[in-house]
């Protein structure tokens, strides 16, 4: 095999390779015909001149270029058609490059940067997001706990408030600062001879208290812890008010018990009868006591804690 033949076949191989790259813009037959027709045209450039380029495989080319000197006219003709197609190829490639640059710049500047991120970056981002979600969930749990505690505290407070209100109502009724209603008795004490002493009237109140009366009104005065009975010219002075016979005493409590307590032998009713008067006890299903007392305001005593 001569050197010339060798070079020619090698050039042929080159053209075939390039045709593959060029994606079949020209057929192999087309190459042959063009080669024959262009054979006589002068050709100053071609494979002969391919020497070096700013490229790593420049050395290989330096070798092949020296071989190509033996190519002859056929080689030059092939080089001419090769140049045309190479120009087209370069144009296509550079156009592709421009296209790719534009596309990449556009896709890079678009907001959806995650779609182009690589797997490990995505995993890192996902981890970050998961961590953040866990932190936020922890925060939610903490806050929910706080909400529960506050609600429980509110419940305790409302229970305490309810108890305090109940206490206030009970104490108000017992102290005489609130009006009261309920079953009880109305005692009407007559004393035409004016012989009943304040002690006798106090006995009525004591007897009623002893029988469990919860609220007592003597005439127009609500009976409280500090109520006093004092003699007065026309009757009896209860606290600041002077009461005259007949005395009407209203008491809230169990009517039967109160009635019994007042009518025991030698009791209040007997005393009144002995004095020439009477003590009529009427059991009522509903006795209403409207007289009120001022809330005592202790000057010296204060709660001493529990």
């Amino acid at each position: 095999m001569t050197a010339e033949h060798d070079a020619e076949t090698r050039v042929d191989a080159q053209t075939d390779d390039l045709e593959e790259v060029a994606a079949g813009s020209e057929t192999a037959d087309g190459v042959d015909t063009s080669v024959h027709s262009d054979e006589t045209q002068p050709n100053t450039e071609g494979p002969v001149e391919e020497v070096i380029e700013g490229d790593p495989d420049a050395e290989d080319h330096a070798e092949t270029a020296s071989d190509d000197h033996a190519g002859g006219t056929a080689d030059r003709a092939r080089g001419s058609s090769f140049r045309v197609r190479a120009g087209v190829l370069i144009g296509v490639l550079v156009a592709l490059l421009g296209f790719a640059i534009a596309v990449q710049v556009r896709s890079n500047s678009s907001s959806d940067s995650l779609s182009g991120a690589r797997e490990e970056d995505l995993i890192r981002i996902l981890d970050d997001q998961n961590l953040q979600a866990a932190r936020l969930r922890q925060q939610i749990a903490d806050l929910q706990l706080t909400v529960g505690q506050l609600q429980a505290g509110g419940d305790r407070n409302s229970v305490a408030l309810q108890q305090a209100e109940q206490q206030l109502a009970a104490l108000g009724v017992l102290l005489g600062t609130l009006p009261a209603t309920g079953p009880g008795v109305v005692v009407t004490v007559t004393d035409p001879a004016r012989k009943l002493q304040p002690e006798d009237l106090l006995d009525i109140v004591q007897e009623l208290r002893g029988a469990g009366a919860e609220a007592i009104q003597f005439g127009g005065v609500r009976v409280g812890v500090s109520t006093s009975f004092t003699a007065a010219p026309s009757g009896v002075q209860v606290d600041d008010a002077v009461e005259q016979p007949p005395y009407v005493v209203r008491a809230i409590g169990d009517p039967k018990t109160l009635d019994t307590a007042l009518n025991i032998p030698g009791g209040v009713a007997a005393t009144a009868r002995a004095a020439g008067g009477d003590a009529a006890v009427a059991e009522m299903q509903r006795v209403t006591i409207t007289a009120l007392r001022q809330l005592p305001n202790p000057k010296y005593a204060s709660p001493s804690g529990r």
Partner: protein
Amino acid sequence: MIAAIALVVGIVLGLVLRPTVPSWLEPYLPIAVVAALDAVFGGIRARLDGLFDAKVFVISFVSNVLVAALIVFLGDKLGVGAALSTAVVVVLGIRIFGNAAAIRRHIFRA
């Protein structure tokens, strides 16, 4: 000249057509662009040196792109994709700078 026109045509086409990059291509496109830029700068330098060869240019262009993409692909498979693509960009960047320096010496004689 043809190459410059083709570059402009390609950029205009890319801007006008607004194609979306398929997701499998996304990691490789920037590297491929840088590799191609390296080949283009090498080609310009060779042109200025009077040594330009179309075949070398075409082959180096294609092989640069393919090798760069292959390296990134391998890196992704090996789990060092980010580091390897950085490495490729650095190497290609150095080459581009070298070629640019040669071009500069040619044009400005400095």
